[in-house]
């Protein structure tokens, strides 16, 4: 027993990912052999993260649901037609389909409802001025998120308030930053995988994460002093 535990390798992120990938490959093989219900496991596993990604682009529940439904059906077809290659990671492949479906949905319905959301490389305001993450302003309800200098409120409540600001930040920033942050922090893709998924240079991906985080840091440090923030580390 002792020898077994000595030989057991530690559970690294790579080993977990590899095991997950094997599990997905197994599901894919079952689907290809005609077990359609195996696809439900994939739906259950990915629906929330796919929804989060689609919401960053479409910012509307119903449209995001339609887009991910389309993405799941496209994925199913790709699996049945054996277009998905086992050597690629399923999650990367799937999120790319979700992203493209959401973009297609956006383009198709752009004229109807999405006039205020910029999806292009440059974000413009109503006057046509180019804005970016550094020009992004976040209206924080000071009554809701006010922290007294005496720091006399419950620490947990303050931490929740900060989490609320971060959640709101991700909902409000331009799509090109929100998508990358979602893929990196929520969907657990690496920089390289995001680069493949969005078809962007690796440097651009890293730069956007850095800039978006830097802006968030500025927003938070304008409301809380550094010592207060460091209390939570």
């Amino acid at each position, binding site marked *: 027993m002792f020898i077994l535990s000595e030989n057991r390798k530690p559970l690294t992120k790579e080993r977990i990912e590899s095991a997950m990938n094997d599990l997905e490959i197994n599901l894919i093989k079952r689907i290809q052999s005609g077990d359609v219900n195996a696809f439900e496991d994939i*739906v259950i596993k990915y*629906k929330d*993260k796919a929804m989060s990604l689609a919401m960053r682009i479409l910012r509307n529940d119903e449209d995001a649901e339609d887009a991910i439904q389309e993405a799941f*059906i496209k994925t199913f077809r790709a699996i049945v037609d054996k277009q998905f290659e086992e050597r690629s990671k399923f999650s990367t492949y799937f999120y790319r389909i979700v992203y493209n479906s959401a973009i297609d949905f956006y383009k198709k319905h752009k004229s109807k409802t999405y006039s205020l959301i910029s999806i292009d490389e440059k974000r413009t305001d109503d006057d046509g001025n180019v804005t970016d993450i550094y020009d992004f302003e976040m209206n924080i309800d000071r009554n809701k998120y006010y922290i007294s200098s005496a720091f006399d409120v419950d620490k947990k409540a303050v931490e929740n308030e900060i989490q609320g600001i971060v*959640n709101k930040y991700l909902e409000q920033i331009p799509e090109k930053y929100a998508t990358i942050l979602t893929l990196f*922090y*929520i969907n657990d893709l690496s920089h390289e995988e995001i680069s493949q998924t969005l078809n962007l240079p690796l440097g651009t991906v890293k730069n956007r994460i850095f800039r978006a985080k830097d802006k968030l840091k500025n927003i938070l440090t304008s409301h809380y002093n550094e010592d207060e923030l460091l209390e939570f580390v």
Partner: protein
Amino acid sequence: MAQSNRKIDDFLDQKLRRVPVIQPKDDFSKILMQKVITEHKRLTEETKKERIVKFVLGFFSTFMIGFTVVIGYLYGKSDVITSGSEVTVERSNSMAGKLVTAIQSVFLSVLNFFGVSISPTTLNIALIILLVIGVYLLGERLFLRGKYKSVKSM
């Protein structure tokens, strides 16, 4: 300073990882799986149709090639007159016959120009085989195009 910056960075990483995922409606999986089952039935039907079309096209192509080869060798040889580098082909009065003769002449002249000498019968067989392959590919492509259209219309 650098260390506190790094700590704040870690703190932000932690907060960003804790941003809650957005969930679709409760019945999302159920509705989606119904659509997936329908899609699976449609794909299975399509595969069956594809097999039938391929079989028919394959059978037709094999039959045409076989028929051409047999007929070509049985009856074709007597019609050919070749003398030196000049290649002559059988003449016909019908429009179709004239067209075939013209095509044969063009191909034979071109091949002759490159120093390749083949009989019109062999050329006929080669052209028929190419034609059959063309018909097969065209038939398959037309079928597949129809298939993609039906997928898009979903």
